[in-house]
C-alpha cells in the first residue's frame, strides 16, 4: 500500500513554550485503519488538528495525497474529513441542513442522493428533520460523522470517537468504521481505549509527550512485544510451589489449583517443555492447560512507562 498522508518532522509549539509535538514523522497508508494510542495530553488531538488546518504547524511538513497542507491547502483539505472529540453542532438547525452545509462548505455541489445514503448508513435518516438539540448524545456523534463524510473524503480523522459513549454505540461505531474502510476510506482514530485499537485497527501508533514511540502492525506488535502466559490446571491443590518446579516467573494461581508461568515468545527457549516435564516428574496430574497473550493495554503501559523513565 502507498502512503496517503505523509507527516515529516512535524513540530508544534504553543506561545507559552509548550511543545505539543516534538518532530513526528509518520506515513499513513492508503485504505488502512490506524489507531493512535496515548494518554491524555500526549499530543493526539494536536497532531490531528495540525493536519486538518485547525492549528498551524511550527515546523515540518504534511502532505495529503501529495498535496502540501499549507501551500496546497484546498486540495489537501478537500480530501480530509474530521470528526472532533467534542460534540460541536449548531443546536437549532435541522440534521439534514447541517450535513448539506458541510458538503457545500467543502465546495461540493448538492447531492441529495449521497446525503440520503450516508444518513441511512448512520441511522439518521428518520431524524433528518429533527432539530439537533433534540437528539441524544449518541445521535449527535453520528451527525458529526455524517458531516465529516458529507464531502466524500478519502481520509477520515476520528478524534476519540467513542469517549464517553455507551457500549452499544461503541459497537455501532466500530461497525461504521469497518464499513467505511470497506468503501476505501483511510481512517485515523485516536483513542485511549486499548480494546478499541485492538478491535478495529490495522496498525497502531503510540504517542506520549508529543513523540511517536512506535508504529507497528497490530498483529506484529502483539506478537513481538507480547509476553505469553501458560496456566497449568492441576488436579491437586498446592500450598507451596514444589522445589522441582520452583523457578523464575512461576507462581501459584487459582487458589493453588494452578501454576502460572510467564514466558517471552521472542526467546530462543520458552521453557515450556521443561516445565511440563517437571510437572509430570513431580507426580502432579494435569487437568487442563491454557495460554494467554498479554493485551495491547499491557504493551502500551510498558511503552509509556519506558518513555517516561527515559525522559526522567
Amino acid at each position, binding site marked *: 500500500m502507498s502512503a496517503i498522508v505523509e507527516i515529516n518532522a512535524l513540530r508544534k509549539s504553543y506561545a507559552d513554550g509548550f511543545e505539543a509535538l516534538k518532530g513526528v514523522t509518520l506515513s499513513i497508508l492508503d485504505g488502512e485503519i490506524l489507531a493512535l494510542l496515548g494518554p491524555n495530553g500526549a499530543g493526539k488531538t494536536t497532531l490531528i488538528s495540525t493536519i486538518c488546518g485547525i492549528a498551524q504547524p511550527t515546523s515540518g511538513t504534511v502532505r495529503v495525497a501529495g498535496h502540501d497542507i499549507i501551500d496546497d491547502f484546498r486540495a489537501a483539505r478537500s480530501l480530509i474529513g474530521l470528526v472532533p472529540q467534542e460534540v460541536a453542532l449548531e443546536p437549532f*438547525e435541522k440534521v439534514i441542513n447541517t450535513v448539506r452545509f458541510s458538503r457545500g462548505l467543502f465546495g461540493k455541489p448538492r447531492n441529495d442522493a449521497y446525503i440520503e445514503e450516508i444518513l441511512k448508513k448512520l441511522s439518521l435518516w428518520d431524524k433528518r428533520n429533527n432539530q439537533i438539540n433534540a437528539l441524544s448524545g449518541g445521535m449527535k456523534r453520528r451527525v458529526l460523522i455524517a458531516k465529516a463524510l458529507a464531502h466524500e473524503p478519502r481520509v477520515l480523522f476520528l478524534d476519540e470517537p467513542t469517549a464517553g459513549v455507551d457500549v452499544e454505540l461503541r459497537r455501532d461505531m466500530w461497525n461504521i468504521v469497518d464499513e467505511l474502510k470497506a468503501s476505501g476510506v483511510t481512517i485515523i482514530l485516536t483513542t485511549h481505549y486499548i480494546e478499541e485499537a485492538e478491535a478495529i485497527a490495522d496498525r497502531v501508533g503510540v504517542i506520549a509527550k508529543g513523540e511517536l514511540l512506535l508504529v507497528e502492525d497490530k498483529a506484529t506488535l502483539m506478537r513481538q512485544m507480547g509476553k505469553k502466559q501458560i496456566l497449568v490446571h492441576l488436579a491437586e491443590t498446592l500450598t507451596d510451589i514444589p522445589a522441582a518446579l520452583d523457578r523464575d516467573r512461576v507462581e501459584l494461581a487459582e487458589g493453588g489449583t494452578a501454576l502460572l508461568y510467564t514466558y517471552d515468545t521472542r526467546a530462543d527457549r520458552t521453557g515450556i517443555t521443561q516445565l511440563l516435564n517437571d510437572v509430570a516428574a513431580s507426580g502432579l496430574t494435569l487437568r487442563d492447560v491454557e495460554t494467554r497473550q498479554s493485551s495491547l493495554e499491557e504493551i502500551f503501559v510498558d511503552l509509556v512507562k519506558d518513555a517516561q523513565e527515559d525522559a526522567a
Partner: protein
Amino acid sequence: MNPTAILAIYKFEMARFFRTLTQSFLSPVLSTSLYFVVFGAAIGSRIDQVDGVSYGAFIVPGLVMLSVMTQAISNASFGIYFPKFIGTIYELLSAPVNFLEIVCGYVGAAATKALFIGVVILVTSYFFVDLQIQHPLAMVAFLLLTCLSFALLGFIIGIWAGSFEQLQLVPLMVITPLVFLGGSFYSISMLPPVWQTISYFNPVVYLISGFRWSFYGLADVPIGLSLLAIGGFTLACMTVIWWIFKTGWRIRS
C-alpha cells in the same frame, strides 16, 4: 475562489435569520414606530422644521442608519462568535476555504439582514411622514456600504470577543454613543461651536450626513467627504480582517 462554499455559509447564516423572521421583522417596525411617536409626535411637534424639512422626516435617515449599523454589527459579530463559542468553528478552519470566502459568507449574510431591517424601517416611515428621496442611487450606495462596512466591523468584534459580555461591549460603549452623537436626531449646525468641532471627529457624522443628503439634499459635511469616510472605513475593516486571517489571531492556535 470557492463560490459553493460562500453560498453554503451565506445560506446557513440566512437560515438562522429566517427561523426568527417574525422577530426580525416586528422588532424594527415596533422600535421605529416608537421613535416616531416619541421624537416625531411628542418632541417633533415643538421643533417643527429643520432646514425646511419636517422634524419627523428629518430623523428618518438617522433612524435607518442607527438600526442598520447596530444590526449589521450584532448580526456579524454573533454570526462568527457563535461558532467559536459552541466549537463548530473547527469545521470552518478545516474546510478548503480562504479568509475571503469566509468573510464573504458571514459578512454578506449579516449585511443582507441589516439591509432588510433598513428597508423595513424605510417602508414603515412612509406611514408616518412625507418621505422624499432626491438621490436614490446615492441613497442605495450609502445604505449598502454602511451595511457592508459595519458588518465587517461586527465580524472583527466577533473574532476578538472572548465572552458574550465582550460581544455586547463595543456596540454598547462605542457604537451607540457615536451614532446618537452623530446627528441621527439633529443637525450638527444646531450644536454650540465647540461641540460642532468635536462632532467632526465622529466618523458616524459623515455617514449620516451623506445618507441624509441623498434624501433631502441637506448635509452637515460635503458629500465627497462622506463617501471618502465610508470608503476608507470599509477598507480599514477589510485590512484588519486580512491581518486576522493571515496571523490566525484568536482563531487558529
